[in-house]
């Protein structure tokens, strides 16, 4: 594949290195000349010292034949514009933006960026995973952004315990598709009866979270 990486910070630098090692064709755009020279001394002549949000820089990098443009600078507004220019002006099929402010995730998706990577959200998610709060846990976004993958721990007191999956009042558009019991993942069938300690995996729309909460978690339980 031919990939254009914009932003030669730590993320862009290691990304470029890994992609080259994996055998891809890569061009890295880094606007600070000193940084660009430093990187190209190390990994070869794949670096252009240009501002990737300028149309002419993307053109020089070969955006009109790029398979992927990954905008990984430290500035959200730059990453947005890089992806939009790539998409709109060069018809690049796949654009990926790093989003530093998690609040920008929905906006970027709405504005046409194909994939959004939020390091802040990831770290947040991993911290939340370690905290035994009886809540729904967001695992990943799916599709174009309205759907998400959710994990729910059925603790004592959950209204789902002792019930068969087919008897649960699931919100429309949500599917219980797997559960984890004793570290074994199993598919959910209509006659699967849930026990305390099961973790269920759900695909659902974001706006169903509240209904899911009352079906799977029940009344608010303080963190133990």
């Amino acid at each position, binding site marked *: 594949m031919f990939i254009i990486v914009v932003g030669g910070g730590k993320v862009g630098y290691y990304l470029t290195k890994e992609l*080259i*090692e*994996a*055998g*891809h*064709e*890569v*061009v890295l755009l880094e606007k600070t000349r000193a940084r660009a020279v430093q990187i190209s001394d190390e990994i*070869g*002549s*794949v670096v*252009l010292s240009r501002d990737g*949000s*300028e*149309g*002419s820089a*993307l*053109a*020089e*990098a*070969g955006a*009109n*034949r790029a398979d992927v443009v990954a905008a990984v600078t430290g*500035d*959200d*507004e*730059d990453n*947005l*514009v890089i992806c*939009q*220019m790539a*998409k*709109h*002006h*060069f*018809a690049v099929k796949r654009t990926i933006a790093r989003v530093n*402010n998690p*609040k*920008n995730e929905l*906006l970027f*998706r*709405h*504005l*046409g960026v194909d994939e959004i990577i939020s390091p802040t959200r990831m770290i947040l998610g991993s911290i939340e995973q370690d905290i035994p709060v009886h809540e729904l846990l967001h695992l990943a976004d799916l599709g174009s952004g309205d759907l998400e993958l959710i994990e729910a721990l059925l603790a004592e007191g959950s209204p789902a315990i002792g019930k068969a999956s087919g008897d649960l009042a699931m919100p429309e558009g949500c599917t219980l598709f797997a559960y984890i019991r004793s570290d074994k993942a199993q598919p959910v069938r209509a006659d699967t009866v849930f026990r305390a300690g099961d973790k269920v995996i759900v695909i659902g729309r974001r706006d169903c979270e509240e209904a899911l909460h009352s079906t799977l978690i029940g009344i608010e339980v303080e963190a133990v």
Partner: protein
Amino acid sequence: MRAVIVGCGRVGAALAVALDQAGHRVLIMDTSTAAFDRLSPEFRGEAVRGDGTDEDTLRRAGVTGADLFVALTEGDNRNIMAAQIARESLGVATVLSKVNDPMRALAYADLGIATINRTTLMADTILEFAGLAGSGRPAIHAGRGHDHPIDVPFAAAGVAAAPLGAAPRPLGQAGAPRAKTGGS
């Protein structure tokens, strides 16, 4: 009307004061309070410190439903992002964004964001002053196709005349440097 200006530089401040004097309701925003020193003492509008690319900040400042939104910060990309938030999330009908890169200015006009380009504006004004012909390009590109949603794939959202896959405006087809890759 209700006008919002993001970026209280010389142009932003002058525009805010002029709109205020003309009897409009003006809100001007900047990340630095020192920038508001540029406003004349007669200015009666609101001056709010805040980041114009932050949706929550704009919402709290009451930008929702304003009649005019002008983004005039020093950063092209910041202006573009602020204008898109105003238009897409806050329902502002008329947005104008200062974009000094002519190519970006044109590209965003295609997406419905009107852009003003200082480069063209100044160069043409100087040429005119010297009695010469300008570039013939407008300094303000009106946002075309205001009614198309921006969240459809951009290449398709552009204009009907430029379908996906058709070559966009010529951009100089410079050969791209090839990476020296380990594999083939």
